[in-house]
């Protein structure tokens, strides 16, 4: 194990830290791909994804299950399983190329310090035998070598920000309700004051009212902490609660990256259009549709556009793989927008 001295660590940390000196996007992803090795072949979970995210904005990643949303998050955070086949592309955080960092350096300087994760069903991932307050303060105690007292003081602050009474610091996970546990996990992700927080289905296991409460808390946090969020969800209605921009994925690829105002009103890509049409709405009359057929296997994806077989606007051109086209401010992977 390589152990950087404090001086080295401090230097790298200062360069990467999202201080006001850095202008430009918080996160820039270029042609990121992640393939897994499986007994039946190579699974192309994420293929050629590129996007940028500005400071203080939030990006929502939507798509059906198995389209590579979570794998994309893992690829950005470099939380990789062992059966990696290919992991390529470039990821810049505040202008620093993360792919050039060693795993150890990445662990020490980036993960949880600059980017943190609220994972799926996180509320079940609290340690049952440690007090919640200790678990929330742990990143500061371990990663930042902070004094215990100062760390707990900071834990109290983030608890307040996510809406848990400070008295709960001394409780154990089983004494908290599901919503409270989820808030504690969010507090844990915020405590190091990162530039980017990735939320992977943060509310899908919760009830409607609790979900609305947590979304309210996240909206306030986003303003107060000047954070960037990446929210991954398959629940389109909820995704709109925290979206400035929307990135829609299909079969491992980015198919559309649009401003929220556009995406929720009239998305460009035929898949995104169908997906939006399939969402049942409560407050407006609309008959939801469904998308016939199934997404292609990621083991052996079709060579042309991956949505072509289910697409209602297919034409000859779709047998070739479309590049990403710029259509105004939006990016879309569809031949229909070739002319721009």
């Amino acid at each position, binding site marked *: 194990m390589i152990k950087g001295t404090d001086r080295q660590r401090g230097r790298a940390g200062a360069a990467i830290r999202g201080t006001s000196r850095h202008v430009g996007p918080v996160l820039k992803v270029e042609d990121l791909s992640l393939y897994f090795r499986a007994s039946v072949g190579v699974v192309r979970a994420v293929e050629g994804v590129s996007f940028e995210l500005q400071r203080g904005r939030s990006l929502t990643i939507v798509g059906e299950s198995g389209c590579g949303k979570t794998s994309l998050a893992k690829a950005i955070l470099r939380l990789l399983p062992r059966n990696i086949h290919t992991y390529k592309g470039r990821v810049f955080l505040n202008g620093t190329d993360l792919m050039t960092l060693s795993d150890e350096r990445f662990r020490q300087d980036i993960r949880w310090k600059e980017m943190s994760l609220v994972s799926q069903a996180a509320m079940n991932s609290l340690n049952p035998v440690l007090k919640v307050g200790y678990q929330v303060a742990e990143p500061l105690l371990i990663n930042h070598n902070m004094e215990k007292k100062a760390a707990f003081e900071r834990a109290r602050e983030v608890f307040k920000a996510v809406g848990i009474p400070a008295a709960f610091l001394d409780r154990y996970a089983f004494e908290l309700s599901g919503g409270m546990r989820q808030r504690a996990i969010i507090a844990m992700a915020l405590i190091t004051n990162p530039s980017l927080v990735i939320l992977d289905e943060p509310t899908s296991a919760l*009830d409607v*009212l609790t979900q609305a409460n947590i979304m*309210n808390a996240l909206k306030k946090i986003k303003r107060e902490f000047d954070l960037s969020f990446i929210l991954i969800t398959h629940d389109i*209605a909820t995704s709109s609660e925290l979206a400035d921009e929307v990135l829609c994925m299909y079969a491992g690829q980015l198919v559309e990256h649009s401003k*929220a105002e556009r*995406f929720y009103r009239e998305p460009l890509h035929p898949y995104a259009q169908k997906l939006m049409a399939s969402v049942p709405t*409560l*407050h407006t009359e609309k008959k*939801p*549709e469904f998308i016939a057929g199934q997404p292609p296997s990621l083991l052996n994806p079709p060579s042309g556009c991956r949505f072509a077989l289910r697409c209602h606007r297919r034409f000859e051109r779709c047998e070739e793989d479309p590049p990403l086209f710029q259509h105004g401010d939006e990016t879309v992977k569809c031949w229909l927008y070739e002319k721009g």
Partner: protein
Amino acid sequence: MENRAPLSVISRVDETDSRTLLSMQDVRVWFELKKWGFLKAGFVRAVDGVSFKLDQGQALTIVGESGSGKTTLLRMILGLCQLTEGQIEFAGRNLDGQKSKDLAWLRSQVGFVQQDPYGALASFMDVHRILIEPLIINRVRREEHEQRIREALEEVRLIPVDDFLTKYPHMLSGGQQQRLVIARALLLRPRLIVADEPVSMLDASVRVEILEMMRGIQKNHDLSVIYITHDLSSVRYFSERVFVMYAAKLVEKADVREIVQNPLHPYTQALLAAIPDPDAKNAAELKAVPPGEPPSLINPPNGCRFHPRCPHKIEGRCDVDEPPEFEPGPGHLVECWLYDPEAGAPPAQTTMTDRAQAQAERQTAELQDRDN
């Protein structure tokens, strides 16, 4: 439960009782808690005073948060747990204290669609084996087996049938697995289907397809369906009637359209206000959500169970007496003191609870200030 509104309103579609398939009267299920394995430590009141009737051919949705007692209600209908009090009748037979023979009969009459299709299907059995099992157990004549399996698979549109018969559950997509679970529930030609969150594990693009299919089957076969969910936005595509459950009680019962357009109980109002429609504007606004969490079912609050979170609480009333069922509109039943006809005019009807709304607006304004 004094001064309850007459129950017959619920089955007003058909006043004669012959169409009634399932009826519950003041049903309670309390689970006893033990301390150190033998000391009595109170009860969990999982279902506490539930009454309704369900007609043959009617589809009913029960909406509620987790822990509100939905699943216990469902287990009761399936004969999987004992009542503490009350009466439950299915097709004219009393379901309490049945013998195992009656239970076998009940279970051939009630089909069950589980929430997690993959977990509900034996992974080591192929489709044919999964479907023939209930036929063997219920001693259906062997000559009928193949035909029944075929019919069920065609019904759920797993066609061509021959391609599917030899497949194992892991070879099917989530939507197909759920169809198989529905096929299995239909196999014994039940009169009632109970579906526990049948689409919550599926993607949005498949959900509607499955719900529409179930709706079609329900209408074609004059089946009754009880659909349990926490997703109110899918409800309107599925059933005629909705019951809202909160802390072990059915607090509001109404037709779908009524619930969506004119919710009366403050809890239902909060629930509807909390569910977003996809819209970019949502990101700039805070939602009006009542504070707090559902009460413990071991020690529920006195009076109305929603009163600690309710913005319309009437002091000295809501926190003292349990509200009976009032009927402010035809077929619209609500357990809330606000609609007590003796207390004067019902309050002005609002789509969202005023105080919570005002608070949300204030906070949204604060957010925007900070933005600028």
